[in-house]
Structure formats: C-alpha cells, structure tokens
C-alpha cells in the first residue's frame, strides 16, 4: 500500500516535471507568435474597437491567446507548487495547496478563454 502511494507520487512528479518542460517550449513558441501577431506584423491600435475587430477577423488570434493562457497557467502555477514543495514538507499542506492551485488555474483558464471567444463569436 505504502509502496503504491510512493509509486503514484513519483509518477505524478515525473509527469509534472515533464509537462513543465513541454509548456516552457510551448510558451516560447506561442509568446513569439503572440508578439508578432499583436505588436509587430500589422499591429492593431490598442483600443476596444480595434482589438475586438482583430479577434473577430479570424479564429487564429483567439486560438493563439487560448494556447498562451493554457501553457502559461500550467507553467506558472506548477512553478508555484514547486516553490511551495521546497518549503512546506507536510503532506496535508502540500495537498491543500495543490488542489487550490489546480482550481485557480482551471478557473482562470476558463475565464480567460471565455472572454476571448465571446469576442470572436460576438456578444
């Protein structure tokens, strides 16, 4: 039983470690696309009207932003989890923090993409 728990924990640790690497590479690529699409190649004026128009033009822009939120949210909150795990050894504390970060991450991802796609499809 104890061995099972340790195996599960180390498997989870591996996947979180691995996904932290995957999301970091994803972030570099998507951030570059984001900067080019919004600030360098034919940049829109930063007003509500112009930004909404750009988002409504093509689903591409909102998709890039949604990917960006996804990668950055995982990377940032898993990073916070790593920091917390370094200073708080109690399993109870760790569990509460992990669940809290997971809930916050999912909520912010849903909220962010909701705001984006509401503009794509109008409303």
């Amino acid at each position, binding site marked *: 039983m104890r061995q099972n728990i*340790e195996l599960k924990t180390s498997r989870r640790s591996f996947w979180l470690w691995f996904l932290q*690497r995957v999301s*970091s590479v994803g972030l*570099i690529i998507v951030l570059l696309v984001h900067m080019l699409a919004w600030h360098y190649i034919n940049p829109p004026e*930063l*007003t*509500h*009207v112009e*930004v909404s128009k750009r988002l409504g033009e093509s689903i591409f822009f909102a998709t890039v932003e949604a990917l960006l*939120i996804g990668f*950055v*949210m995982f990377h*940032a*909150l898993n*990073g*916070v989890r790593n*920091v917390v*795990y*370094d*200073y*708080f*050894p*109690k*399993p109870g504390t760790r569990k509460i923090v992990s669940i809290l970060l997971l809930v916050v991450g999912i909520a*912010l991802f849903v*909220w*962010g993409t909701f*705001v984006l796609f509401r*503009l794509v499809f109008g409303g």
Partner: protein
Amino acid sequence: MVKHSGIPYYTKRIAKASLETGTFAHLLHRITGLLLVVYLFLHMGVISFTYLNGQTFDDLMATFSSPLFLVLDLVLFAGAMIHGMNGMRIMLFDMGLFTRRQKLIFWVMMAIAAIAVLAAAYLLGTLEGWW
C-alpha cells in the same frame, strides 16, 4: 525511504552553498518566476475585467502606453529573458549537455539575455523617439 525535503534541509543547503553561481541561478530563477506569476495575475485580471467595458479598456491602454509603463515593460522583458534563458540552461542539463561547464553556460545565457534587453531598449527608444 524517501524523506520529505523540509525547511531545515533546504535552508541548510542554501547556507552551505553560500552564493555560488548555481545557487545564484536557482534563486534568480525562483525570484523572476514568482514576479512573472504576479504579473500574469495582474495582467489577466486587469485586462479581462476592463475588456467588458470599452471606455475603461481604452483609458487603461492609454495609461499603459505612458513612458513609465513602457519602462516597466522593459523590466518585464528582462525578467522573462532571464527566466527563459536560465530555463534553457536547466533543460540543457536535463539532457546531460554542458554539465561540466555549468558556470560558464550560466553567464553565456545571462549575456544573451542582457544583449536582448539592451536591443529591446534601443528599439523602444527609437520607436518612441527618446533619442
């Protein structure tokens, strides 16, 4: 068998290592990472909530285009570059590359970050007509 790495262990390790290159890189990665998280929350919160009101959004964007915020953008870029370049260094070590040259690689990465930030500052100043 596996013991949790608690506070005493961690602080002792930092104290013992004093502030050698690796420890410095570790702390720098941590500090820039946490600052970027703070920025992320402010950024998403402020933009998503004001976006629901067009006028507020426009006023906000005007404020964010002021020189003070443009300089803060540079600070943000510096933080992201330091975190990103140091992150690449970590991934090189994960792949077993340059592990015997870790101190050199750290300063090479920081030099690349510094050059990128200086270039960005120059570009920003040119676009804004600061010089």
